[in-house]
């Protein structure tokens, strides 16, 4: 028996002979991207849960000091902003992966790329401007609980200086660490998705 001849029969009988076309290659790239898109969506969900948790905390604090109007206003505003952030992120989250069926795979990937970047930008736009307000509120809350007014608290030069210095130092720090955390949690996956989009565009 000639094993080389037998091998030729094996090739005919045992292996698949279906042709490979461009769509198969695009599908392969897309399948890899689906995993990346799912990870991004899951991480966005975790972010939403944190935002919801803080919304609950601020609401609880407002309710705890319900008879103290300034405190209720500060924590109520914080809860409102976080609540808005939650619903904004939720809108992005729900849009991810629920594209119209007639969209091409490349368009789905591009759409998801746009949505996740949009969600992170939205988070930055709504969260970072609130940091100075939150700091002012947080510094004032102990005094407000004791019955002082906002004007009397910030009328003291020492408290005002602490507030200004805190804002100058902490706002950039919060932004720096926030961006850093987002880069760790999302950066590599967003880059991977971007690379896959480029590859798809080249194949297409």
């Amino acid at each position, binding site marked *: *028996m000639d*094993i*080389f001849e*037998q*091998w030729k*029969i*094996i*090739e005919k*009988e*045992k*292996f*698949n*002979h*279906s*042709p*490979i*076309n*461009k769509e*198969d*290659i695009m*599908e*392969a*790239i897309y*399948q*890899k991207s689906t995993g990346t898109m799912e990870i991004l969506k899951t991480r966005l969900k975790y972010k939403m849960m944190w935002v919801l948790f803080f919304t609950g905390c601020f609401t609880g604090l407002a309710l705890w000091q319900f008879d103290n109007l300034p405190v209720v206003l500060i924590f109520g505003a914080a809860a409102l902003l976080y609540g808005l952030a939650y619903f904004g992120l939720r809108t992005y989250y729900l849009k991810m992966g629920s594209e119209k069926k007639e969209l091409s795979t490349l368009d789905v990937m591009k759409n998801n790329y746009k949505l996740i970047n949009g969600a992170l930008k939205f988070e930055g736009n709504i969260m970072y401007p609130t940091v100075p307000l939150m700091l002012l509120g947080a510094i004032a809350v102990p005094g407000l609980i004791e019955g002082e007014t906002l004007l009397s608290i910030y009328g003291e030069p020492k408290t005002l200086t602490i507030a200004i210095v805190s804002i100058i130092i902490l706002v950039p720090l919060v932004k720096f660490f926030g961006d850093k955390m987002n880069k760790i949690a999302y950066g590599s996956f967003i880059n991977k998705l971007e690379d896959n989009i480029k*590859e798809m565009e*080249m*194949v297409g």
Partner: protein
Amino acid sequence: MEEQYISLIQKHEGIIHKVIGLYVDNDEDRKDMHQEILLQSWKSYANFKEDSTFSTWLYKVSLNTALTFRKKEDKRKLVSETPITTTSSESKEDYEMLYFLIKQLNEVDRMLMTLHLDGYKNQEIAEITGMTSNHINVKIHRLKATIIDQLKKANNGHI
């Protein structure tokens, strides 16, 4: 570049199907490995240098992907790696028997035997596998002897 790649892949698609057929047994894994090989070959295509033939290059990428894929996957789902035995296969056709024996080889031996049967020279096999030509020569000699011996046994001494 992409048109050239697609045309070359289509011309040599048999290599991909062969590697998949030899390294995975269930449809789900076949589909996954097919996608993985296409993806990896597309990603690596930019590094393809024409000092080797496309088929040699594609074999290398496909086999590397198959071996990595196997490491990632639950090994119990994949082809078993038991020593060659022919106890229950005596009624099989010759090619079935040969296929059975090749699939029973371990990953590396299966790769060497496949490349040899595909007509690759030892130097080319060395380029694909990274082993030395001498080592390949010895390995293939032994593997062929074992397989022919098993085929003889299955055919009651005739081959």
